[in-house]
């Protein structure tokens, strides 16, 4: 029995007919924007309910979140500063994901990158700032890169699960950092806060002119765009995605899978290593235990929310940077505990993961042929 034009099936059947070419071409892209967007709205609404249970007005909540994250020029800078390291550490998870690997050790690569960068800066006190800074970037990339390459090599040559090994390498990295900072590299003047000597004010990379946002943001944007081009517009990236889709097929067609995996791991670790270098050269000025601030772990969340797309990482990192920037205002104005921000991050994560099931199932976006 027919229900006329209200029949959803018929309505869906009609819509693509209006402009099948457009939807066929852009349907998937629209999905990529629409579904995470809806998941985000759903998560925010759920968080509003959660906050209402504590007797706070959800509208106040949304207002303060907006104000703290994007409401003023200061808030924007706050958000972007927090987003900068997240873009880089998210790449550490997103790049290996192209090959089907789950690397969650960005924090370790960040620490080792920071330690390497500090070491070279301290080893060349005679050099001009530009030389020192260039050497620090290289050292950060190499240090962080080799750290994650280690996880990749363990997987390819020894059959060790890369998720576990990269996570354990975080703790080894932290132990190495603490060992050196409290021992061989310790500045004798850092009595109660063991730290290395300072790299010197002249060697600091400072902020992007006209803002308070440090250069880490520029590094992040460049790395994200470069990764996007590498993955989607080069033969190397295509090979990586083929290997990620089906590793046996990749081997059969003669792709050097080992080389692909090690290279991608190196680049991934290198990105997180730059984040560590930036923390030293733009923020802390030296290496100490403060560097283990969890950027590497938040980066995992960013990468998964962005579905491992290097370009999508940028807005997602800004979103999470904004949430953490507004977290302070929620504590101060609404008296919410700090953990409420973690609750929101968790809710967003669950909604985005659950929304994965919707891809390819939204009828009107299917370009029927």
């Amino acid at each position: 029995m027919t229900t006329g034009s209200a029949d959803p099936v018929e309505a869906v059947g009609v819509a693509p007919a209006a402009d099948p070419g457009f939807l066929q071409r852009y349907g998937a892209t629209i999905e990529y924007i629409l579904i995470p967007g809806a998941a985000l709205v759903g998560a925010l609404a759920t968080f509003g309910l959660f906050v209402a249970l504590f007797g706070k007005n959800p509208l106040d909540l949304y207002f303060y979140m907006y104000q703290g994250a994007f409401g003023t020029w200061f808030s924007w800078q706050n958000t972007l500063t927090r987003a900068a390291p997240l873009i880089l550490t998210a790449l550490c998870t997103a790049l290996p994901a192209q090959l089907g690997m789950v690397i969650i050790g960005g924090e370790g690569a960040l620490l080792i990158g920071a330690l390497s960068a500090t070491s070279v800066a301290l080893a060349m006190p005679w050099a001009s700032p530009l030389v020192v800074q260039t050497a620090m970037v290289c050292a950060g990339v190499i240090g962080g890169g080799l750290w994650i390459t280690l996880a990749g090599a363990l997987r390819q040559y020894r059959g060790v699960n890369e998720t576990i090994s990269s996570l354990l390498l975080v703790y080894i990295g932290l132990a190495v950092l603490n060992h050196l900072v409290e021992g061989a590299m310790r500045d004798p003047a850092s009595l109660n806060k063991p730290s290395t000597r300072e790299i010197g004010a002249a060697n600091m990379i400072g902020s992007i002119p006209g803002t308070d946002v440090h250069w880490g943001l520029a590094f992040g944007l460049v790395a994200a765009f470069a990764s996007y081009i590498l993955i989607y517009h080069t033969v190397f990236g295509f090979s990586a995605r083929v290997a990620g889709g089906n590793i046996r097929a990749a081997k059969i067609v003669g792709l050097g899978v080992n080389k692909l995996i090690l290279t991608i791991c190196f680049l991934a670790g290198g990105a997180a290593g730059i984040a560590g270098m930036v923390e030293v050269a733009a923020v802390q000025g030296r290496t100490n235990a403060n560097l283990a601030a969890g950027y590497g772990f938040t980066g995992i969340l960013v990468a998964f929310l962005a579905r491992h797309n290097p370009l999508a990482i940028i807005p997602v990192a800004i979103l999470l940077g904004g949430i953490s920037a507004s977290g302070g205002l929620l504590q101060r104005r609404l008296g919410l505990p700090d953990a409420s921000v973690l609750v929101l991050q968790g809710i967003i994560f669950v909604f985005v993961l659950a929304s994965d099931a919707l891809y390819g199932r939204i009828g009107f976006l299917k370009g029927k042929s």
Partner: protein
Amino acid sequence: MEFGRISRRHLLQGGAALTLGTAFGAGAARAAGTTIGFVYVGSRDDYGYNQAHAQGAAALKKLPGLKVIEEEKVPETDAVEKTIESMINLDGASLLFPTSFGYYNPHVIKMAKKFPKLRFEHCGGLWSDKDPTNAGSYFGYIDEAQYISGIVAGYSTKSGKLGFVAAKPIPQVLRNINAFTLGARLANPKATTQVIFTGDWSMPVKEAEATNSLIDQGVDVLTCHVDGPKTMVENAARRGAMVCGYHVNQSPLAPKAYLTGAEWNWEALYPKFVKMIAAGETIPNFYRGGLKEEIVKCSPYGEAVSAEARKHADDIKAKLVAGNYTIFKGPIMDNKGNAVITSGTDRGQTDPELEKMNYLVEGVLGATS
């Protein structure tokens, strides 16, 4: 164009903050209508370091005309700079208490330079004359209170074995361990203190393991120097051992097992600071004191403390309050047999040599590295 509008609004806000700052700097009744910002590195109900500061903040909330805003779990990265700026820009804070030791260099220094009209009071005793004069760093000689705890512990132990769960072998921690042991040996010359370093400020699992392992070795009175003594106190009490607290009064966690404890007295110091500002007095940039200056205090004795112990401890406390008692009075040997303070040398509380302490005194079982 949207940015332009935000920029202008921000300028207006910046102007307002500046006016507020000027009013704060010049007006006579400066404390009235002042907003005070507190930043904590952990959660403010940790029964430890951060709760001690939150109790100080709570004391300020009771004073008329003050607005106190708080933010917890702010890491020692540029996040603390952004939190401080956010408190200034969005809430108009003009007096800031960034309370964690690791906030000072470079973050508090940077903010004090950026906002020269506002006042920054940091906990840690790190100010030096190179630093901005609108920044101050205060700290307390809490080893005096640890010394009193040691006396009580020396009387209370049956096995003569005391335990100390410590974070890192840095001068402040070593000084507490040594003062505790010297106090205990005043009461019981054969007492020993077994120390276990957990490696970091907040390691609940390691703290629990250390507590259990100390008790397994026959230790029957424990104390600690970690950020949150809750784990040690609860685990020790459950195992039937007695405890001396640290940072705040933990007797609600273990009413039977709690002997006494070394507490911060920020609820006395912070109102004092605000009154000094209101009266137009300058707070010394480097501000320190012990029991005499009421910056530290001892927890009230628990019911298990004998009359003899109370009398001895009260006696020494009275001498410390009167300012005519030296804890680090030669001869003092370290636990490797070297004379670290020679006979006839008195190292009074303000002696800078004590700030560099790198040894454990005779009677401590353990090593600094």
